[in-house]
């Protein structure tokens, strides 16, 4: 079984200094999520990998960790981040327009072990704003379609208005033999899709639980429920990968804000194999 990389891509020296990046494109994904495309003003950060994050700095406001949501083999030095405007920093980032300068540190953390799914069914399960960190996996799978058996995308959101990448999901459905399933927790009558929690999609999804490799991102509680549903379906915990999100500040394992028991998520994660992390997820104080 492959393992996630554990070496931070950027050495500690210089890692605390943000590099200036210019917003070159901005796309509204829904009522509170925006995708920003950033290009380096001068020096670029090291190439970012699927699952990694950067610290995005809105000058004078603050920094937040944001995962890459881009097509990494296409993007080159352009960084693509999908951001939900929920607080002071993310509101400032989402208010930035084309031409504005933001600070970027990183990339930080380890990467999704996408190769672990080579020759097998690849399943991604996203909840809410958990889909953007999974999008690089889907792009990779589409670009290297022959390397994988079935590619399955399962996505759950709060309401239809909260869903991300709706047009892209339709395109993926066409390219992935229909193996893209979307559900929302609640909807009005104008919604003609599924209503119910994301775990409800798992029993009938088209993958082989004996061999499939699953990548899950969403709120921690959603990941716990999803992992349980995948295990009930027959997937073993060593084939389930999750990405953790805690309060990350320095990004390089110095400040300890993102500590979860013996692990520092910014340094050792954010990607973990479920069987390595599961005991910690059930400790209430952590």
């Amino acid at each position: 079984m492959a393992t996630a990389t554990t070496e931070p891509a950027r050495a500690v020296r210089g890692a605390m200094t943000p590099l200036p990046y210019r917003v070159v494109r901005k796309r509204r994904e829904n009522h509170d999520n925006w995708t920003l495309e950033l290009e380096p003003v001068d020096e670029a950060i090291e190439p970012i990998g699927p699952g990694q994050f950067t610290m995005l700095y809105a000058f004078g406001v603050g920094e937040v960790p944001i995962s890459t949501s881009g097509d990494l083999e296409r993007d080159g030095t352009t960084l693509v981040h999908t951001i939900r405007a929920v607080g002071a920093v993310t509101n400032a980032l989402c208010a930035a327009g084309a031409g504005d300068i933001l600070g970027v540190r990183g990339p930080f953390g380890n990467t999704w072990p996408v190769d672990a799914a080579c020759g097998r069914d690849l399943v991604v399960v996203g909840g809410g704003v958990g889909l953007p960190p999974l999008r690089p996996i889907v792009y990779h799978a589409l670009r290297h379609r022959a390397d994988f058996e079935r590619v399955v995308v399962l996505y759950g959101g709060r309401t239809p208005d909260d869903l991300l990448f709706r047009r892209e999901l339709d395109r993926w459905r066409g390219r992935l033999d229909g193996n893209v399933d979307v559900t929302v927790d609640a909807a009005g009558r104008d919604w003609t899709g599924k209503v119910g929690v994301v775990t409800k999609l798992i029993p009938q999804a088209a993958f082989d639980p004996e061999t499939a490799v699953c990548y899950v991102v969403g709120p921690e509680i959603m990941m716990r429920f999803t992992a349980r549903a995948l295990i009930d379906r027959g997937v073993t915990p060593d084939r389930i990968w999750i990405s953790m999100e805690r309060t990350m500040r320095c990004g390089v394992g110095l400040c300890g804000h993102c500590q979860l028991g013996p692990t520092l998520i910014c340094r050792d994660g954010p990607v973990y194999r479920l069987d390595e992390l599961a005991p910690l997820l059930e400790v209430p104080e952590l």
Partner: protein
Amino acid sequence: MRTLDALIVESPVFRGLKQDQLDLVAGCASNVTFDAGERLFGEGDPADTFYLVRHGIVAVDTYVPNRGQLTIETAGPGEIVGWSWLVPPYRWHFTGRAVEAVRAVQFDGACLRRKCEEDPLLGYDLLTRFAQVLVSRLEATHFQLMDVYGDRHD
């Protein structure tokens, strides 16, 4: 064309049912179709039926003042819609509506209840199976109530 027996026993909730029990269950079943938008049942109506969806999506709705008709959940192929036929007062708690054209197996709940009373082994088996449906609905409801995708500020 597959028989009703075959359609019923292929569904997760009835999988593994013994042939004699399957015959009893199928004796209370019939094939039905609904056009998109058509109502299967209405909130407060007597609950004498339940459905095994074969094709299409059934929405379970309720009316919320100032918010309109809200869909609480949907059921697709292989899933069961309706458990109110099983427990008194046998009234639908929500409204069922075909989101798109639906083919389903409709079960006569009163007929099944009678057979369960006459055959306690069948009754126990069906109750166990529907308890699993109810538990999964309850777990899903807990999950929905947590509103896990709600706002978290940075």
